[in-house]
């Protein structure tokens, strides 16, 4: 290549490298029009750019960990070291797979943190952090573990100024400062609603960019230090949090809660208002700070303002400000920074409410001494009742996601469990029965919903979250109608909102679809989910588990509708997403069982069995005691029963039944469905006397719980038909089968219809009605062909049966009909 040619190529490359892929193609096409040789050469060079990303990407020799500029971490390329701290390094980075242009701040945790247990915790936290989406929050885009085993986080890269400096430099008036703090409160409240406590709120984590607040690092402190032990670091050890904004319980090493954040917010507001920290120290040492935090009452903000800088007269502006702060704002800050967490604002929302009241000139809700008196007294009086009830509620929450064990885990995460408790105390406050140490869950939920609607009316997103929780709890209780009613309200609420976080949207859609499916409204379930398919696609990177749940729900609905291929594809998508990262054993097991169900449906018994067993083993290993195992054992048992393995089937079904009674109670739809399968097995084993009455009861209870036209009621009717047939009662058989067929004729249940018609035809034939039998079988035949596409062996068998039926002319004569 000569210099002239290179100069030409070089200036073209300058242009082309500026463009994106499409732009390059377009420009190259233009070049090719004039000089095909040049275009070909440029294209070849640009192809190298794409294909050889690693070429020279790192210096010829570089030690891992040092000078990592240019290094790839996950899908990111490190650009520039932004800062280094105790936790690790923060880099400016960009996506190197061309997915997004946006640059991110990539936090690389230092190697010392790659300790055992971190990875599991990391995977769990990542899911939770990904749920946090708020306009004033530096969004988590991605998180993973680099090849050296160090966790990394990709967050919004925020070029802002710490809130304190921003306010000082611009000399903002008090109102504007407080309005910025209200933005901070809104993010913190959002995180608390997601059960995440920040624990390290400080001005350097609260940046102002483009006039709005961005909060950084939510939940990361918690991830690094789940027990809050860094608060009691040994002397000389670096602290993970900044002492100046730490709450007394952090200094003491006591359990942290959402009220810890309330305290830190109080300190930040104090500093934003006065320009000073709330304590004046004689000597600046950590020990002195700790003593102040634990023992010294902060100087009221108004008085701090009047003290001014040492040795200088207090400017008139400060005196004016002090007059405005005196009274209500002093009171508000005092309450936020109370040494006793129970005396502080119960939630960030309450703090924000008083800030707003102050700004509007309305009286505060905080009262001088005596605040919180009633609640504290109540808690003390009913300590055991409340504790028990809140644990029961955690357990209930877990049942709703079908896991009692999760409640145990949740309790281990002290801060979050505490947040949960704070969040729910109001519920128990009004649930009369709590006072007697037991309570009616349904009443509790109803109270909770009324309270949420009344008190969260001004915060539609929070209300929607709450309705989602309540809807989920109702699904867990088997009250699918109620659940759907609440989830419909949630849907209406969300439809009127803009900027609904993706996580909330996905969860709402999936949950409502689940309620629809439980009610047997499978077509609606599919339509509802498919309307949100694009949201799921967008969120797939960020919220793999939520999208997996979405896909899995879709698969279940499609499978109920006999859309076998679509269902399989959706289960496989769910499986892949659940397996991403650290994996989600319960989700994986669910998807495996779903696939096994499809195999069983297709008659691939050996493969189905393997699938169920794999799923059950996974649950046993990773999440023993989860109620999901109930459904899996039931399906496995049904399949084993069908293939004549009665003893094994019986073992699986009995185990499912015991767990179901324990987890759900005897009248829950899940339990009833297991009982139906047990009765069918008993019938197969010749125990008709037991099966008959049990099935009758199951049908009645299912009809009561789910409505008389529910698919499951049809299945119970069909089973009763089986019993009648075994009893030799032709009329009763026909009647039960007809009822089942009538129920299954509803478009949602057509997948069950062919089998129903097949059995009905047989019963009609046995009862001496060959014309009705023929009609049923012809309909079944048509359906089978329509559903499965090709004439299957089932269709051929139907043809045989049809051929053996007496011809219409002959059916008049009973003598020939018997031939």
């Amino acid at each position: 290549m000569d210099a002239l040619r290179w100069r030409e190529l070089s200036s073209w490359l300058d242009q082309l490298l500026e463009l994106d892929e499409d732009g390059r193609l377009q420009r190259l096409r233009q070049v090719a029009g004039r000089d095909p040789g040049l275009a070909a050469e440029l294209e070849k060079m640009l192809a190298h750019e794409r294909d050889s990303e690693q070429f020279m990407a790192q210096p010829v020799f570089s030690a891992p960990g040092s000078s990592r500029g240019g290094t790839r971490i996950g899908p990111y390329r490190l650009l520039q070291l932004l800062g280094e701290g105790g936790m690790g390094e923060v880099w400016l980075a960009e996506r190197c797979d061309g997915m997004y242009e946006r640059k991110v701040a990539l936090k690389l945790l230092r190697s010392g943190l790659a300790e055992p247990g971190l990875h599991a915790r990391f995977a769990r936290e990542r899911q939770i952090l990904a749920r946090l989406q708020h306009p004033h929050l530096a969004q988590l885009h991605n998180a993973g573990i680099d090849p050296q085993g160090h966790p990394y986080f990709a967050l919004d890269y925020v070029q802002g100024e710490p809130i304190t400096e921003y306010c000082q430099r611009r000399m903002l008036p008090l109102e504007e400062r407080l309005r910025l703090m209200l933005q901070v409160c809104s993010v913190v409240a959002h995180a608390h609603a997601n059960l995440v406590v920040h624990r390290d709120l400080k001005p350097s984590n609260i940046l102002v960019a483009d006039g709005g607040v961005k909060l950084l690092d939510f939940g990361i402190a918690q991830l690094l230090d789940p027990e809050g032990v860094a608060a009691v670091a040994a002397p000389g050890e670096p602290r993970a949090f900044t002492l100046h904004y730490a709450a007394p319980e952090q200094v003491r090493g006591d359990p942290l809660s959402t009220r810890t954040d309330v305290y830190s917010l109080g300190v930040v507001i104090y500093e934003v208002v006065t320009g000073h920290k709330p304590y004046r120290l004689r000597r600046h040492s950590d020990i002195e700070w700790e003593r102040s935090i634990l023992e010294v009452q902060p100087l009221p903000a108004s008085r701090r303002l009047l003290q001014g800088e040492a040795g200088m007269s207090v400017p008139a502006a400060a005196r004016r400000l002090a007059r405005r702060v005196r009274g209500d704002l002093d009171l508000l800050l005092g309450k936020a920074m109370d040494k006793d967490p129970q005396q502080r604002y119960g939630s960030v929302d309450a703090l924000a409410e008083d800030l707003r009241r102050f700004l509007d000139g309305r009286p505060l809700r905080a009262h001088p001494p005596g605040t919180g008196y009633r609640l504290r007294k109540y808690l003390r009086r009913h300590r055991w009742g409340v504790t028990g009830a809140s644990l029961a509620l955690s357990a209930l929450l877990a049942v709703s996601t079908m896991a009692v064990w999760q409640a145990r885990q949740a309790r281990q995460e002290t801060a979050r469990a505490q947040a949960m408790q704070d969040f729910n105390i109001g519920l128990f406050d009004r649930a009369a029965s709590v006072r007697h140490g037991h309570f009616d869950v349904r009443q509790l939920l109803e109270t909770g919903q009324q309270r949420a609607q009344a008190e969260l009316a001004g915060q539609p997103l929070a209300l929607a979250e709450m309705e989602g929780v309540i809807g989920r709890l109702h699904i867990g209780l088997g009250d699918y109608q109620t659940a759907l009613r609440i989830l419909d309200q949630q849907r209406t609420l969300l439809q009127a909102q803009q900027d609904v976080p993706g996580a909330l949207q996905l969860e709402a859609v999936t949950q409502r679809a689940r309620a629809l499916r439980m009610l047997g409204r499978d077509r609606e379930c599919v339509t509802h989910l498919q309307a949100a398919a694009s949201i799921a696609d967008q969120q797939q990177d960020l919220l793999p588990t939520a999208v997996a749940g979405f896909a899995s729900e879709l698969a279940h609905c499609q499978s109920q509708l006999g859309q076998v291929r679509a269902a399989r594809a959706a289960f496989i998508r769910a499986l892949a997403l659940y397996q991403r990262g650290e994996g989600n054993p319960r989700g994986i097991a669910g998807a495996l069982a779903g696939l096994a169900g499809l195999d069983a449906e297709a008659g691939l018994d050996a493969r189905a069995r393997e699938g169920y067993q794999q799923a059950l083993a996974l649950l046993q290993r990773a999440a023993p005691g989860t109620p999901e195992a109930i459904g899996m054992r039931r399906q496995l048992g049904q399949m084993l029963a069908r293939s004549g393995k009665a003893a094994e089937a019986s073992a699986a079904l009995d185990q499912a039944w015991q767990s179901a009674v324990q987890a759900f109670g005897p009248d829950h739809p899940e339990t009833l469905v297991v009982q139906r399968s047990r009765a069918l097995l008993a019938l197969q084993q010749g125990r008709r006397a037991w099966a008959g009455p049990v099935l009758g009861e199951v049908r009645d209870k299912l009809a009561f719980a789910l409505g008389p036209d529910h698919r499951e009621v049809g299945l119970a009717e069909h089973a009763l038909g089986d019993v009648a047939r075994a009893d030799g009662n032709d009329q009763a058989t026909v009647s039960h089968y007809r009822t089942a067929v009538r129920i299954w004729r509803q478009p949602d249940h057509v997948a069950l219809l062919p089998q129903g018609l097949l059995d009905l035809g047989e019963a009609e034939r046995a009862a001496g009605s060959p014309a009705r039998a023929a009609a049923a079988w012809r309909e079944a035949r048509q359906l089978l062909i329509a559903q499965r596409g090709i004439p299957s062996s089932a269709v051929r068998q139907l043809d045989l049966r049809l051929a053996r039926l007496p011809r219409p002319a002959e059916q008049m004569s009973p003598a020939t009909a018997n031939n």
Partner: protein
Amino acid sequence: MDEGSDITVWLDAARGGDRASLDRVLTVLYQELHGMARRQLAGQQGRTLDATSLVHESYLKLLGSRGGARFEDRAHFFAYAASAMRSVVVDYARNRLARKRGGDLKRVDIPENSSSGIRMDEDLLALDVALERLQALDPHLARVVELRYFAGLTEQQIAELSQRSERSIRRDWQKARLFLLTEVSGD
């Protein structure tokens, strides 16, 4: 010999176009980097070389430790150090290849593969030849390659030293890489 005491003088002279001073600076740097690289490798079995730390250490030793190095000195120092580092690495590759051909691999003290996946044999020598060609066509680009690839400086550091925008450094690097890739892959 105390290289540190005189290197600024040589740097000045080299900048003024004195070829002998430039050689002198490069020789000193070469010896320094080579020696440090040997020590870095000898210290521990299986330890990897770290070009960045070598260059920065040599800077501290020869220039920075006395404090208050002038900006021009810094800029030139790194340019020369990068160039010297390139010579050290190329010589390693050449030696390695010679010994491999001679069948004596026992004394191999340098990793076979560089951090960026380029093998320390014909591959690196081919890259060196390509870089030589680039130097003839576009010396600025070759300089950026030496600073970034052989001395391990970040684009930001290079931008500061050369008093250009990070963006233009990045563009130069992209173009240089494309040139080298095209040359090395022989099409």
